[in-house]
């Protein structure tokens, strides 16, 4: 089973420039573990030292923010589109 994850620009350095990557897992916590196995270091960018998803990054299953579902226990299935969306600012000055 394979699930597509949309990687935002600021994290694409860790995915060798890819903006969409395939992962496996049955929930968001699994997905982050699999993502970090494939692209070491990415978990530390998404999660803080306690393992919680950082407050300036949101994860969406299709159109839904997982904070309003079951957080990192939110289940995912084949065909879901996962988006990692950080707060952005910069380059305009």
């Amino acid at each position: 089973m394979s699930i597509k994850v949309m990687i935002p620009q600021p994290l694409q350095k860790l995915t060798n420039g890819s903006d969409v990557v395939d992962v496996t897992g049955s929930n968001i916590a699994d997905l982050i573990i699999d993502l970090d196995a494939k692209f070491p270091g990415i978990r530390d960018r998404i999660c803080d030292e306690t393992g919680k998803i950082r407050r300036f990054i949101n994860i969406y299953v299709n159109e839904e923010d997982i904070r309003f579902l079951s957080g990192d226990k939110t289940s995912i299935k084949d065909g879901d589109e996962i988006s990692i969306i950080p707060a952005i600012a910069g380059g305009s000055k």
Partner: protein
Amino acid sequence: MSLNEDQIERYSRQILLPNIGGKGQEKLLNAKVLLLGIGGLGSPVAAYLAGAGVGTLGLVDSDKVELNNLHRQIIYCAEDIGKYKSEVASERLKKVNSDIKIIPHVIRLTSKNIMDVIKDFDIIVDGTDNFPTRYLVNDACVLSKKILVHGAFFRFEGQAMVIKTGEGPCYRCLFSEPPPPGAVPSCQEAGVLGALAGVIGLIQATETLKLILGLGEPLVGKLIIFNALEMNFRKVKVPRDKNCPICGEAPSINSLIDYELFCGLKRA
């Protein structure tokens, strides 16, 4: 208020539109919109809102025009380098449309002055380029119940949403706190495709015009994400967060905060 002949001719192509007409044009002429930051986002917003006849346009920017601005900040010319952006923009827009009132401010926004700066306007368009100002603007708009049209970009990607306090979520419902210094490239030159700034700015301009005219569905409770490389738009839902520190059920933020500017830069 009724439109004169010049106005009927000037705005004829939008007066013709169903749901706008003379009444819609009068709404535009009576609207007061404040642009915070006249850079990559604010330039196209200013040009289109002035063209459309938004009657009062406030322009806030403390910066001067630099050569490296010209690839995306389309209302400036090479001869403007070294001059204050809000003043140059004001002169330029008056040449496009002398029918409207333009109020330039050369001012850096802080917790002390922002409430006063925004108080006479109905809609605030955020074209600022850093997180401290972004959160200051959000909080000020929530506390004073102003409509805020948010836009941001990074390299080849941009985001936009509309914040209507009381009806929908605010920026802190989306991201409760700014990233700590160094966590996200912000001040450092991350670079941007000039036309991307235009796309996001024009989403902001379009949303502003829709809000004034009361047309269509505003981007309330939805974040739009534009990817220029894939040339796609995605929308995700942004629910109101009952735990939001400023617009939630038990807000912990009751006054404005000046976050330290990132990258070790100090406020001038």
